[in-house]
């Protein structure tokens, strides 16, 4: 009479290892997919802090604040005229990913404050 274990039924420790491996494989695949749609490579932004120092988020893009608006108050989508700027210590030089003369600089670039 044989007492050998059925090989199709994993042991409890073996099952745990399989679960771990499956979980990490799924996480790795998901990470690879997410890296393919990284926003930072094309200068897109949803938050002010998505942009590099000296840039502000306007209409979903990191852009250079208009001249005279060194405090980064050129926020997107704001129609209010208030400027509640901070120290104005931000630099406008550097790795600009937006253009200074696109439509985001013309009309609706006043209002909120960058907190970068």
């Amino acid at each position: 009479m044989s007492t050998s274990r059925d090989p199709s039924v994993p042991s409890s420790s073996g099952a745990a290892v399989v679960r771990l491996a499956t979980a990490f494989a799924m996480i790795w695949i998901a990470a690879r997919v997410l890296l393919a749609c990284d926003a930072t490579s094309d200068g897109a932004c949803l938050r002010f802090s998505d942009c590099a120092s000296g840039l502000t988020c306007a209409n979903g893009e990191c852009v250079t604040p208009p001249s005279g608006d060194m405090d980064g108050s050129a926020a997107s989508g704001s129609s209010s005229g208030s400027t509640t700027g901070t120290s104005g210590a931000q630099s406008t030089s550097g790795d600009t990913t937006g253009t200074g003369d696109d439509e985001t600089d013309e009309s609706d670039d006043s209002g909120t404050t960058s907190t970068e």
Partner: protein
Amino acid sequence: MTRAFFRIALAAVTLACSLTEPIPAHAQQYLIGATGAVSSGIEGGSVGPYRTRTRLRLGGDVRIDEFPDDIFEVALDAELEPRSSVGADLRYARAASDRIFFDAGIIGILAPSSLYGVVGGVTYRLPLGKKAQITLGPEADFYFLGSDLPDGTVVWELRFQGGFRVDL
């Protein structure tokens, strides 16, 4: 006659008392767990969707043994990349089964810029032993307040989190 009746009655009362042995009372116990998880996913708002920031969540949960399905969670959140920030969240979780838990609560990114919103999710606990579990599940965040948000923007995030939980 009367004497016999009293004897029988006394025996009956004694028997009844012995059958209904009192259950010893005990105080409510707090059941505490610790969790650590990493999450990422997609986010959107006025534009997008894009990959959202990778977040590390370290926290704890507490429940009372009399109501083990009602769980309160608090955690520190650290966004790691591509930009870093720190925050916290506070959630109420409800056990739908031994392994599936729904939660909802509030979340705030506190520094370097503020961002506040609500969060909800589902967690599946994959048991690794008597006290340890792998946690997996989706989560949705909605941010609508804070100095980091452009005017009129609501940022949503759909995350998938994976982590580890231990009953302490």
